[in-house]
């Protein structure tokens, strides 16, 4: 059985945000505009959190790409009254957009605050409409969404493997963020396969889970050589 997972090497991350752009382009994420973003309604499925350490002028910036952690024991799932978010057999937290009625309970129960909500119907003014990804549905207003681990690419990878009459191999599926990362800080693949790149990364002594003591069993593993301190406000 497959358990899709991702590993992110923070020591390689430069905070360039290419992944953020790639994610938005791949997944038809609506651009809400300056005013809405200021109200806390930016819809990025993947964000680069910036934390500063030290006193000026000896300041160090840390970057942390945060996306849906595809938890093995996801707090968002049991609270949804209509099964709009559920656990699929391959370890993904799947969203059924057509089922979502917009209680936003899942978002409240997400310890990583990675879920985003369509406050209004999506608008893709020309020429943005001509770059929409035909493999990804455009979500209506009033619906919750979040990172899907590029489930459409997973599906395409499986289809291709099936046509060639073989198993899905490591490297067949690349997520948009992984593909666009100039420093190759992101690995994606099957965590159940001990030889996959993501599994090898996850075995690293530098590996840790975000908010690991909550035991949400994330499918995303972070790697950092230096001590990572949860910054308190």
């Amino acid at each position, binding site marked *: 059985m497959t358990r899709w997972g991702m590993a992110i090497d923070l020591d390689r991350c430069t905070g360039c945000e290419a992944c953020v752009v790639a994610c938005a382009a791949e997944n038809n994420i609506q651009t809400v505009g300056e005013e809405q973003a200021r109200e806390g309604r930016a819809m990025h499925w993947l964000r680069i959190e910036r934390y500063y350490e030290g006193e000026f002028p000896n300041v160090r910036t840390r970057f942390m790409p945060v996306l849906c952690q595809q938890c093995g024991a996801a707090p968002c799932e*049991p609270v949804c*009254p209509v099964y709009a978010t559920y656990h699929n057999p391959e370890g993904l937290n799947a969203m059924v957009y057509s089922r979502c*009625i*917009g209680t936003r*309970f899942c978002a409240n129960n997400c310890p*990583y605050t990675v879920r985003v909500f369509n*406050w209004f119907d999506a608008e893709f003014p020309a020429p943005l409409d001509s770059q929409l990804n035909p493999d990804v549905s455009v979500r209506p207003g009033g*619906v919750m969404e979040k990172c899907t681990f590029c489930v459409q690419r997973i599906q395409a990878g499986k289809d291709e493997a099936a046509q060639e009459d073989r198993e899905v191999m490591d490297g067949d599926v690349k997520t948009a963020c992984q593909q666009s990362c100039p420093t190759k800080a992101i690995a994606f693949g099957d965590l159940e396969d001990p030889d996959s790149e993501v599994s090898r990364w996850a075995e690293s002594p530098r590996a840790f889970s975000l908010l690991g003591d909550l035991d949400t069993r994330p499918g995303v593993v972070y790697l950092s050589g230096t001590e990572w301190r949860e910054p*308190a406000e």
Partner: protein
Amino acid sequence: MTSEAQRPARELDGELLGRLDRRRPGLFVGSLASGALVLVFLYCWGYQIANGIGVTGINRPVFWGFYIINFVFWIGISHAGTLISAILRVTKAEWRRPVTRSAEAITLFALAIGGLFPLIHLGRVTIFYYMIPYPNSRMLWPNFRSPLVWDIAAITTYIIGSALYLFLPLIPDAAVMRDRAAAGLKKRFYAVLALGWRGTAQQWHSLEWGIRILAVAIIPVAVSVHTIVSWDFAMTQTPGWKSTIFGPYFVVGAIFSGIAVLMIAMALLRRGLALERFLTDRVFNNLGLLFVTMSLVWGYFTFAEHLTVWYSGDLFEKNVHHVLLHGDFAVPFWTMVVVNLVIPVAVLSFPRGRRPLPTALVGCGVLVGMWLERFLIVVPALSTPRLAYSIGDYMPSWVELGIMVGAVGVFACLYFTFTQLLPIVSVWEMREGWRHAGSGEAGGAESDDAPTAVATAPAPGGGAA
């Protein structure tokens, strides 16, 4: 049960209904004002449905805002009626007589509005029924693990229960209205409500048993409703929400705000209908004592909740705690402490403070305080998420404010309409009470088996005295 020293039933009914009638002009003005607010409510909700839930001020991370606060608030208010009137009926408190009907009506209407808020809150209200386990071709069920589905079960049970509980004691009064009304639409309306009531001994017997069973059954339902509302929060792992104390804390808060409403309603009834004989100073004194007790219990729960959070030293919990006690939410927090604890204790500890006017004023303060309490549960926990990057804030939009104020209007409108159509004071129960008083024992704990003589209503067509 002999009635030689007593006035005939019809005369007593007439006197009470006459008193109720005199309030009509005021009610009419109130109905108009509340009707205007109903329009505000409908306009704001319609505007939101047409434009999207984004017209509110909610955002990431504050995904829940005024609608959920008002939901909890109104469900809390609903405990004014059924729970308290049930307790009074079960304990056979004589002074319940003029209060029960109005309290039960408060429950039903507050519940109806409280139950509406989670729907207003939905991103896609048009498919709200996905939450209901209805048979469908895709064989899809709601997720019974979700506290929201428990909510639906609890609130519908409570609405049905309290509607029955309001309706049962209404039957004899509807019969009185039917018999007083001139033939026509009005008479038919009351006839339907009266369910063919003739006031036979058998009917009285069934009615009393029905009320008794419902009064006992509704108490656990009322407790469960607010416990489940609290679980919408307590079942999460959100700092500031996950707490084992929330169930009883919410029930106590609900009863507290319920009594506040009751104190206001009683003071108004006593003044408006000249019911000093029933709603005596002693009643206000005793209810004032209960009120201050609830205030202290509430204060104790609040203290216990915050002390354990602070003592744990948990980083994320402490962040929420900090904004609450010292940060952005300090002003509403300490206002809440003052109006919910300091003022009630300071006023109600003294006999002079337990009179109608001061208790009603304290009640108004407590309503504000309990609204703030719900605000302080919902917003700070959400605006202070674990990952500091997502810290946010929340400011309601005019749509949310409009719906909040409009909901008060909807409540008032329902209440005024009810008062215009049916006696807001239970006529037969008052009659029974007057009889008790007349026969020397006002506080009679003895249940009168059957006020049969009273209720042998005149034949249909026998108009008003």
